[in-house]
């Protein structure tokens, strides 16, 4: 049974279409991430689900209830804003209790639930403080507590971690994931940080220019991007425009020939993509018969901690990046100018 059903949702601002026929089915308790570049319509979609922006067309159902034309206060959604929007004149506890009061939960029960949710987000000791007396991370957790305390039918998070520093972000997102699955909350999480999306979401919705490009699990999105946009947007990709050159062969515009083994390659493919981690580099001459290879020269070596990024250049000038694990011992260090052979598994290239 799906908990949220979005059908052909459209938002127009005059002639401008900012959300274009978005359709989506979200299961009960599922954690969905909206991922896309800035301005692609993530916030607008989220606001339409919350009821803060009227939809121009399409429908939204929470369970069996159609909410498309309901005002936000009748939708039963929990929303965490990018800037949190904690009520500055209310204490932490009062902020959290607000949604319960609106639902006419009796005082004792409300106090119990506020205490409960505050200890869940580890803020019980700060219940009496005003929002401005909290750190960014603490404010974020109040915002979250405030949105989940009344067990909303859907929890909507608009870049909730963007105000936090890198370390806190990873910490809080793990915490968020834990809470979400413990409470079984259907959640939509907007972000333009792909790491965040890949690590917390059950499924990712990749958006671009108001449209849904692909919906899938993080693994699907990364390994089987449906479109060239998704392939380029998620992770690092070596992308070569060009065309098919016979079955299992691709010729790039600059003249490199690639062999690949994907059976499902479209016949009109115009680009080939290879993830850098699939590329391996060897010194010396190409192994005879190894079809998936290219001769190249090392151009740049960038040490990246866990991995080393090596950029090589083919004779015709095309660049290819390879990610080599630094844990692989016995590999002698490559230097700019070294001749190498790049190779990849036959099923690694993706064609669009």
């Amino acid at each position: 049974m799906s908990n949220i059903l979005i059908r052909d949702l459209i938002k127009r601002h005059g002639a401008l279409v900012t959300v274009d026929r978005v359709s989506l089915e979200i299961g009960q308790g599922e954690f969905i991430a909206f991922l896309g570049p800035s301005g692609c319509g993530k916030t607008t979609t989220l606001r339409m689900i919350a009821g803060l922006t009227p939809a121009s067309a399409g429908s939204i159902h929470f369970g069996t209830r159609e909410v498309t034309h309901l005002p936000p206060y009748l939708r039963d959604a929990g929303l965490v804003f990018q800037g949190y929007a904690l009520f500055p004149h209310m204490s932490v506890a009062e902020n959290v209790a607000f949604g319960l009061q609106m639902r006419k939960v009796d005082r004792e029960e409300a106090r119990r639930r506020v205490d409960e949710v505050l200890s869940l987000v580890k803020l019980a000791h700060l219940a009496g403080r005003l929002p401005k007396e909290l750190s960014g991370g603490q404010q974020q957790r109040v915002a979250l507590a405030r949105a989940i305390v009344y067990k909303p039918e859907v929890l909507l998070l608009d870049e909730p971690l963007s105000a936090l520093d890198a370390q806190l972000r990873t910490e809080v997102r793990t915490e968020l994931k834990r809470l979400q699955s413990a409470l079984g909350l259907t959640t939509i999480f907007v972000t333009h940080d792909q790491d965040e999306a890949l690590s917390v979401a059950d499924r990712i919705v990749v958006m671009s220019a108001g449209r849904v490009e692909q919906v899938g699990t993080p693994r699907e999105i990364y390994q089987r991007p449906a479109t060239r946009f998704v392939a380029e947007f998620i992770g690092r990709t070596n992308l070569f425009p060009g065309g098919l050159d016979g079955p299992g062969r691709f010729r790039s515009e600059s003249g490199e020939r690639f062999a690949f083994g994907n059976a499902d390659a479209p016949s009109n493919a115009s680009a080939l993509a290879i993830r850098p981690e699939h590329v391996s580099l060897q010194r010396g001459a190409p192994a005879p018969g190894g079809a998936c290879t290219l001769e190249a020269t090392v151009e740049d070596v960038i040490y990246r901690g866990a991995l080393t990024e090596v950029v090589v250049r083919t004779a015709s000038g095309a660049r290819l990046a390879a990610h080599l694990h630094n844990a692989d011992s016995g590999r002698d260090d490559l230097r700019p100018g070294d001749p190498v052979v790049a190779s990849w598994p036959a099923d690694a290239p993706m064609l669009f």
Partner: protein
Amino acid sequence: MSALALTGEDSLTGGLPAPGATDRRRRRSSAGWLLFPSLTLVLAGLVLPLALMARTSVAHFDAASPDLVGFTLENYARFFGEPFYLMILARTLVVALSCTAICLVLGVPAAFVISRVESRALKTVLILATIIPLLMGNAVRAAGWMVLLADKGLINSALLSAGLIAEPVRILYTGSAVVIGLIAVLLPFMVISLESVFENIGTAYEEAAQTMGAPPWTAFFRVTLPLAMPGIFSGCLLCFVLAMNAYATPVLIGGPSFQMMAPKVFEQAIKVYNWPFAATIALVLMAVTLVLSVASSLALQKRYGVL
């Protein structure tokens, strides 16, 4: 290390002032120069005159001589002794308070709507429509009300010709007319102060409240309005002070029978030449205004924190 630096500072700099100190001193002296013109202006144009006025208010009135003579409280005794003047003070207070209350009731929705209008063009038009009347001055707007409210004014003429009334209704030269006239004068001040307040609060808090289940009225009264409280208070204060001090509206719209404090000052000074008593009325008016302003801001400060 830090202790050494602290104790050794004087000897290290060889008695010269530390760089920080010079800097601070220079800033202080520049502050002095920057404040000089404005403070001189206020001192010469307001503080000294008020001191002189205070002195005048305790002088004995002698119609024959303009000099300040004697020290007496007779002017104050007269003001607080005669029910006539106390009544004028009470009337002024009632008018000012009711104007402030009505301005609040009308100004809050007006300012809120303007601040939440989505179209930039419409917002500009509405703000200009608020500012432009401010520029017309009390005199022009009083003239407008006179034209509307007079026995033979537009409203009475219209009602008469429509056959709704047989006799003109007396509106001009009544207390209600003064309140109406003052509201029209003061409302733009209220709307403009509040509009920027609502604008600054933004829509995020309302939206947060609404997603948590608060219907519009609840969101407004529980969230938006409390956040706007400091702005609402300063708007009210401005209205109240301006209403207390209003001259043109009571003179022109209230007429001779509806007397208020400010016109009384002018009358005593220019028509009766009783400067000591004029000074007394003026000072009472000012003191009452100040005391009420300060008292209310203290009360609100207690309730809503720093304003």
